[in-house]
């Protein structure tokens, strides 16, 4: 075989994978979204997306994803910042990554116990004099558990961005008389924006489509787009509607990725 034949040969198996598992599923999803329950062509699915029920669900979904991303960022940035300042950086980083290897469902399941009526969280609240509260099956537990799950995905890219920041820039700012806060605001934060963007993308997109967390700890109080897709595909068997929501979600995501630019690169795994 000639050199060129070899090179083209590599493209065949990889190309087959691309067509079968990347292109075809998207095409089928779009195709299915134009079918009604009986398999006839219709635009009714797209019409029902614009009814108040679905619009409200979408608004909620985006609102919760935004909230989860914001809280993750507010907690994650200082975590990443101080992680870079610790002496045993690699060890701390390992400790941060370790929970990522624990099955997501087990972590969610743990909160069934922690947030239960007699769980640790309520015992703490009691000790503080607040008294037991209903924690499970509330919006609070949904946001808390989601942030808990996603925080490492926020911390890692920010940590990488902070590590790549030359310390001489910070020294220069301080030498020129900038306060610690000004240095952070004008030098450190702008230069780590790439990491922040990557982290936000890594949290926001999955947060839009979670369904197991809503099912397990949020009762059915919080319905996200992910829950709706799962519901339509696996419970009510209305695949057309499920596919339509999936298509809408994909378009929304593409818009987000384009708007936030190519920040993803910096946080690549």
């Amino acid at each position: 075989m000639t050199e060129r034949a070899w090179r083209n040969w590599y493209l065949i198996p990889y190309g087959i994978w691309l067509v079968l598992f990347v292109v075809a599923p998207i095409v089928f999803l779009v195709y299915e979204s134009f079918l009604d329950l009986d398999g006839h062509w219709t635009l009714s699915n797209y019409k029902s997306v614009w009814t108040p029920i679905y619009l409200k669900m979408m608004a909620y979904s985006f609102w919760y994803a935004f909230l989860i991303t914001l809280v993750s960022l507010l907690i994650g940035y200082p975590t990443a910042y101080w992680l870079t300042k610790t002496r045993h950086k690699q060890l701390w980083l390992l400790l941060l990554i370790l929970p990522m290897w624990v099955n997501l469902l087990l972590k969610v399941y743990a909160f069934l116990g922690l947030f239960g009526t007699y769980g640790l969280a309520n015992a703490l609240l009691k000790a503080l004099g607040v008294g037991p509260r209903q924690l499970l099956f509330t919006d609070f537990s949904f946001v808390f558990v989601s942030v808990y799950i996603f925080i490492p995905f926020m911390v890692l890219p920010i940590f990488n961005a902070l590590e790549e920041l030359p310390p001489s820039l910070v020294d220069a700012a301080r030498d020129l008389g900038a306060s610690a806060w000004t240095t952070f605001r004008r030098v450190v934060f702008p230069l780590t924006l790439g990491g922040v963007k990557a982290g936000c993308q890594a949290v926001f997109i999955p947060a839009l489509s979670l369904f197991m967390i809503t099912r397990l700890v949020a009762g059915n109080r919080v319905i996200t787009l992910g829950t709706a897709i799962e519901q339509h595909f696996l419970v009510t068997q209305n695949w057309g509607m499920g596919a339509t929501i999936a298509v809408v979600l994909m378009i929304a995501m593409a818009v987000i990725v384009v708007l936030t630019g190519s920040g993803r690169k910096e946080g690549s795994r």
Partner: protein
Amino acid sequence: MKRTHWWGRVYLLAVFAVMYTPIVYLMYYSFNSGGAMHDFQSFTLKWYRDVLSDDRLPIIVLNTIVIALLSAAVATILGVIGALAIYYVKRQRTKNALLALNNVLIVSPDVIIGASFLLLFTIAGIKLGFTSVLLSHIAFSVPIVVLMVLPKLEEMSPTLIDAARDLGASHWQVLSGVVLPFLAPSIWAGFFMALTYSLDDFAVTFFVTGNGFSTLSVEIYSRARQGISLSINALSTLLFLFTMLLVIGYYVLSRKGGRLYGIGGRK
């Protein structure tokens, strides 16, 4: 400066305490004879015995492991071929297009991947079960392997290949004698990543699993939906220990390659 450090340390400790509480909590109550995740009564190994004597679980564990190993192996081979394919493409635009397509499955949410694969298998007439789960796991692991191998490939000095070719090596000899050994650490890292993605996956599997076939994640979900049962805690403790073994293996392997893949400081 000293003050910020003090604050920073307390903050980090608080964050890490919250991160580890649920995991420790799960494991702690797996030894509770009381049967609930509160009010520790007395130490027992009953739940572990339950897990080990359950007659469905061994099959499910076996399913999970077979799927993980098989899908990781096939995905690694496909991923390496894919990385080579992208590497050899000359035109930058084609290259970027291929990379963009490659990343579709990485950025898509699991629910969409699951739903679209369910459609794919239904239209293609593939029965839901072992085959569909295996194919999906291969499919979503391939791009991860590509992303782990490709940077290493780009890093490789072209003079290495030129030298081998000048000395009369055929393409196959260059590949097996020069390129693949050079890529070995990243190939292993890709394999391990694929393995963990497969072991960890719930959402995609949940969609394409059908009746009668189950992996651990799906089983945990259906049990957890019925409420608290301490045998899940026992199971999770066992899984955690197993994961630790995997992590250690992964670190030993990636240390050998002189770098830590998949975590910070890749450059």
